[in-house]
């Protein structure tokens, strides 16, 4: 089962995790990217994500398809938010399962690292004194 979702609403983490893992799977790895309150040595008030959705979907599909095939994933759910994301909220969730943990970790890491390189989504950090588009890949 593969699922790619872009949404404005907060991510239902419990639901996604609950739906990951088949009876052939020994390992589930979940990555949650969260909006944190410090960045570039400043207090961050909230984030905003802009997305080129139709293209983002295509790029995400390439990433997920590669990971599913390469690391024998039985489930792979990726949810990315756009619009405003508050501190402590998840901006992205990757929940996947595989028979063995080696594959699950590798796939999870590959997916998040590649999303940050190729999927057309941009983050803007809002501080008390302004905002800035983030263009590094940290």
């Amino acid at each position, binding site marked *: 089962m593969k699922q790619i979702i872009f949404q404005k609403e907060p991510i239902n983490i419990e639901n996604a995790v609950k739906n990951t893992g088949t009876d052939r799977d020994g390992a589930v790895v979940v990555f949650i990217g969260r909006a944190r309150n410090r960045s570039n040595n400043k207090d961050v008030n909230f984030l905003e994500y802009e997305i080129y959705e139709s293209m983002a979907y295509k790029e995400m599909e390439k990433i997920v398809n590669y990971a599913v095939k390469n690391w024998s994933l039985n489930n792979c759910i990726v949810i990315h938010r756009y619009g405003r994301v508050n501190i402590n909220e998840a901006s992205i969730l990757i929940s996947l399962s595989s028979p063995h943990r080696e594959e699950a970790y590798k796939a999870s890491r590959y997916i998040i690292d590649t*999303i940050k390189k190729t999927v057309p989504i*941009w983050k803007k950090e809002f501080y008390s004194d302004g905002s800035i588009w983030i263009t590094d*890949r940290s």
Partner: protein
Amino acid sequence: MKITIKTFATVKDLLGFDEKEITIPEGSRVEDIIQKIREENPSFNEIKDSLLIAVNEEYCSSKTILNKNDILAIFPPVSGG
């Protein structure tokens, strides 16, 4: 012929539009359009980051030749996740 330009993030902020239809000569390459934009929008040169280009939702190089009705997207390095 007509193509559509889409912009995102810093590029959108500097150019002041997120989508625009323009008319270009047949055989134009992506780099020709970028060059034209630079001339018409001096502020565009403020962008320090290398730009990314997609035509019809696929990444491509600045040498790509554009066709009628293409959607040319111009944006800074992505920063999702």
